[in-house]
């Protein structure tokens, strides 16, 4: 009898995997574009603009930018240098995983690339399941395909925690929808230790928590909603004990010109001409900032859950209150509603083909630009 149950469960799992094989195919296709471009850039890209660590590995380009900081935390631990750019600005989960990978006998860069790319496959699967649950299978498929080849999605293959966080966002929401609140708390807390954006994902979970009837269930649900704040508290506690400054991560961010003020957005706009003068690539972030707002509006018009659209808007707009548009293009990747909006625009076959083709071309171009930019 138990053998029969096991075999029928195995068949069901096999059927589920077969149905989702297209996710693996799009993941593989998108990642192949990024990895192959990185390898080509290794041989043909600018040597002078890359560091020694980046040049010494075929895919070293994908360990550039903030990847260097995550590696420094993994190897040396946190060290706050007041008034200078230092590593407490980078959250601890990704360096912890890099150390775990390194303990298995692989290099930090290789560990980072494996973690990011595998986590991105999991993120695509979780994102598709969440979107299917909220908006139906057709839109879920389109949104997942667009996410797999999104132009700035090269970041999901870099030594960055973005793929882990996106995965955590989608899994937290799925667990909450299925009323598995302890799992939701665990995943949300882990995600927050990778990047703080997951704090805002608790917003769409609030109505679900409020709809719980029993005291125990409600307590667990609110525990899950509070988990990201608690995880952030654990990071502050750690920094307080180790560095004597619980807010070391915000103090370190100031050296990157980030300081949150109520008029930060105005400051960001005012400073824009000077920022462009210093680093013209900031235009890329401004373009994506506007694009994300348009896509969030499209998601709203299409009928996406309003709290998810609001959470997306916070993820996109809030960083500008630090007085800078820098890296908004990357931050917006963590707003699922952006991709729902894009999927709503690709309803016709023609637009769908245009979005897929253009995204793939821009994904390659965006990967090419990595060694030319010093963020």
């Amino acid at each position, binding site marked *: 009898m138990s053998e029969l149950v096991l075999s029928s469960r195995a068949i069901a799992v096999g059927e589920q995997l077969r149905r989702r094989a297209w996710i693996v195919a799009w993941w593989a296709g998108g990642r192949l574009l990024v990895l192959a471009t990185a390898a080509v850039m290794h041989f043909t890209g600018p040597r002078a603009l890359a560091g020694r660590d980046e040049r010494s590995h075929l895919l070293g380009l994908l360990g550039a930018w903030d990847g*260097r900081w995550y590696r*420094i*935390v*993994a*190897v*040396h*631990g*946190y*060290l*706050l*240098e*007041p*008034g*200078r750019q*230092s*590593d407490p600005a980078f959250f*601890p989960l990704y*360096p*912890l995983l890099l*150390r*775990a990978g390194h303990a298995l006998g692989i290099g930090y860069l290789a560990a980072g690339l494996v973690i990011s790319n595998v986590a991105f496959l999991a993120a695509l699967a979780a994102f598709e399941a969440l979107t299917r649950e909220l908006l139906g299978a057709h839109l879920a498929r389109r949104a997942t395909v667009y996410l797999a080849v999104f132009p700035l999605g090269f970041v999901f293959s870099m030594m960055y925690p973005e793929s882990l966080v996106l995965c955590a966002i989608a899994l937290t929401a799925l667990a909450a929808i299925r009323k598995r609140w*302890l799992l939701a*708390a665990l995943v949300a*807390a882990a995600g927050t*230790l990778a990047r703080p954006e997951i704090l805002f994902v608790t917003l769409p979970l609030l109505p679900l928590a409020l709809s719980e009837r029993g*005291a*125990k269930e*409600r*307590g*667990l*649900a*609110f*525990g*899950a*909603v*509070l*988990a990201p*704040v*608690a*995880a952030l*508290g*654990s*990071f502050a*506690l*750690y920094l307080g*004990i*180790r560095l004597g400054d619980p807010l070391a991560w915000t103090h370190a961010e100031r050296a990157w010109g980030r300081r949150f003020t109520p008029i930060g957005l105005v400051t960001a706009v005012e400073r824009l001409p000077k920022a462009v003068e210093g680093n013209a690539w900031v235009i890329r972030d401004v373009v994506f900032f506007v694009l994300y707002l348009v896509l969030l509006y499209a998601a709203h018009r299409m009928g996406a859950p309003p709290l998810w659209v609001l959470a997306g808007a916070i993820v996109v707009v809030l960083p500008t209150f630090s007085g800078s548009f820098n890296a908004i293009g990357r931050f917006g990747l963590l707003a699922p509603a952006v991709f729902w909006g894009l999927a709503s625009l690709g309803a016709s076959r023609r637009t769908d083909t245009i979005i897929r083709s253009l995204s793939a071309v821009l994904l390659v171009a965006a990967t090419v630009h990595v060694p030319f930019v010093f963020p």
Partner: protein
Amino acid sequence: MRTVAIAGLVAAATVAAGWGLQSVGLPQAARGNEAAVRAAEWLMRFRLTSSSVQIGGRVLRGRCYHGWFDARSGRDQRGTVLELGNGLTVRDVRPRLTAAALTALELAGCTDVLGPRVASYAVGNTVLLRRTRVSDRPALAIRLHRLTLFVSPRTDRPLGVQLDGMRSTIELTHMTPSLARRLETGA
């Protein structure tokens, strides 16, 4: 009430587990790196250093100042000036700076030259530390590639520099407005 207790318990468990994970899983920065960061902080808090170097049995004194100067073009320029007891002057008005001038400025403990260098090295490198003595006082030697910075073991305040086989003692000095005016005009 039970709801609040359970939610609080989940949050407390999250804080404890998160802190435990970071404490166990992340390395602590080496003592040498921490000392280097504090030494860099000391350096960058000052604009004036007095130094002395033993060269060929003679003591050469120097005074290094970081600020604005009257340039030859007549315009104000920001940089570092090292005045040596033998009448020579070394100027760091970037981007032009020779290797010999850089060595002199670092050996003299010029704060705006040495501070950023120490701070940069402390990030991403393992900084070695050993006990030693400077002017018959206990000190810590912070090894930064080919340069060694001597600091107080209690406060990490810089006491001296060793570079290219030469060794200096340095004293960080507070700037007074009148002294700043005198130095800026080259009087």
